[in-house]
């Protein structure tokens, strides 16, 4: 399980969340290992049987007003009970002021007390996004990731099949590169996000040329820091017996980190322009998304044609029959 210290979090988000530290600096050593945030509400009222202590605790106006309503000795008991449950840190929203006893207890029991100028709801959504990103499931694969007409296309296939060359051709045609060779896939918001596997910049290795820097060669507008993955395209050597899709009915999926994405297999042979096929696949996907499916449309027209012919035959037969009777 991944974890970060409260100090890491504080240093990273100090500016974005307008955070300030109320407790002593040594309280920042605790670890955060949950991607969720919690509002303690009932826990402050003494109900601690179900309490997500491992989460960052956000105190909004409700919590602060409730604490202020308590008598000094009750306040002391409740806070102490909660602080003993090993919570990572507390963030108070809107810069609300807490009873002084809390600051004392926080220092004593080594729990970081932070204050944010954000409103509770904004603080929680911002925090959730940050934590989800930090704790996202991820894996790194050998692939290229390009943005083609706004769709994230993951190019996979054996080494040397021409993934980078295909990506380069797409960039040359005005599309953008997310990463070459190593892509880190991350599970965020039920979607698959991809970003470069390493942070060296937008280098690509093109066989016969060596390294090229896409950002310098084509400009920063042809690069993307990350992209949701919409489709995987597997490039493979042409095989005579392979069952390539001919119509576009079959729905094949690849699964990464539990997310299913459509996959298509494209045979590659020398002189075949793969990037055009990738573009076409992306546009076809956009069309399907807005409700136009070329395969269905064609088949519908074909069915109509066949039906007409069958009807005509029936009519012809009937006329023939009645003529022969006469």
């Amino acid at each position, binding site marked *: 399980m991944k974890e970060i210290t409260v100090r890491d979090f504080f240093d990273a988000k100090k500016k974005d969340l307008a955070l300030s530290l109320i407790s002593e600096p040594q309280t920042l050593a605790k670890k955060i290992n949950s991607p969720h945030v919690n509002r303690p509400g009932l826990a402050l009222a003494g109900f601690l049987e179900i309490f997500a202590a491992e989460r960052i605790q956000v105190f909004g106006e409700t919590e602060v007003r409730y604490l202020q309503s308590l008598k000094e000795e009750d306040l002391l008991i409740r806070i102490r009970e909660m602080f003993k449950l090993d919570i990572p840190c507390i963030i108070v929203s809107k810069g609300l002021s807490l009873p002084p006893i809390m600051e004392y207890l926080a220092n004593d029991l080594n729990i970081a007390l932070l204050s944010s100028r954000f409103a509770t709801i904004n603080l929680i959504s911002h925090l959730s996004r940050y934590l989800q990103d930090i704790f996202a499931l991820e894996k790194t694969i050998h692939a290229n990731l390009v943005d083609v007409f706004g769709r994230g296309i993951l190019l996979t296939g054996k080494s040397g099949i021409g993934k980078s060359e295909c990506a380069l051709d797409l960039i040359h045609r005005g599309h953008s590169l997310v990463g070459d060779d190593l892509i880190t896939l991350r599970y965020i918001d039920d979607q698959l996000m991809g970003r470069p596997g390493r942070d060296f910049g937008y280098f690509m290795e093109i066989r016969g040329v060596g390294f090229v820097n896409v950002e310098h060669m084509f400009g920063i507008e042809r690069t993307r820091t990350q992209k949701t993955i919409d489709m995987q395209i597997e490039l493979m050597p042409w095989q005579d017996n392979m069952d390539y899709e*001919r119509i576009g*009915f079959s729905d094949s999926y690849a699964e990464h980190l539990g997310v299913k994405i459509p996959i298509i297999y494209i045979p590659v042979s020398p002189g075949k322009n793969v990037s055009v096929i990738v573009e076409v696949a992306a546009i076809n996907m956009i069309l399907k998304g807005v409700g136009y499916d070329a395969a269905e449309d064609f*088949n519908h027209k*074909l069915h109509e044609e*066949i039906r007409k012919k069958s009807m005509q*035959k029936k009519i012809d037969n009937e006329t023939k029959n009645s003529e022969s009777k006469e």
Partner: protein
Amino acid sequence: MKQKTVRVKNKLGLHARPSALVVKAATKYRSDFFIEKEGTRVNGKSILGVMMLAAECGSVLELIVDGVDEDYLLEEIEGILNQDFGE
């Protein structure tokens, strides 16, 4: 070279799915393969060609095969065209 006359058996005729089966089977073989219907001859390895025939149920097709593995090709295509595809 061999030639054989067959009838389309399935109710909905040679629509996209059966056509794809025919073409996919045919491309596995080295022999040339043509289908003729009412004087129109198409390449049996071309999906658009086969579908453009719009062969309805009961229509007569002439299968023409030519090459080293023509017997096997013909046998497999006949097998496919004899199915009813659950229609």
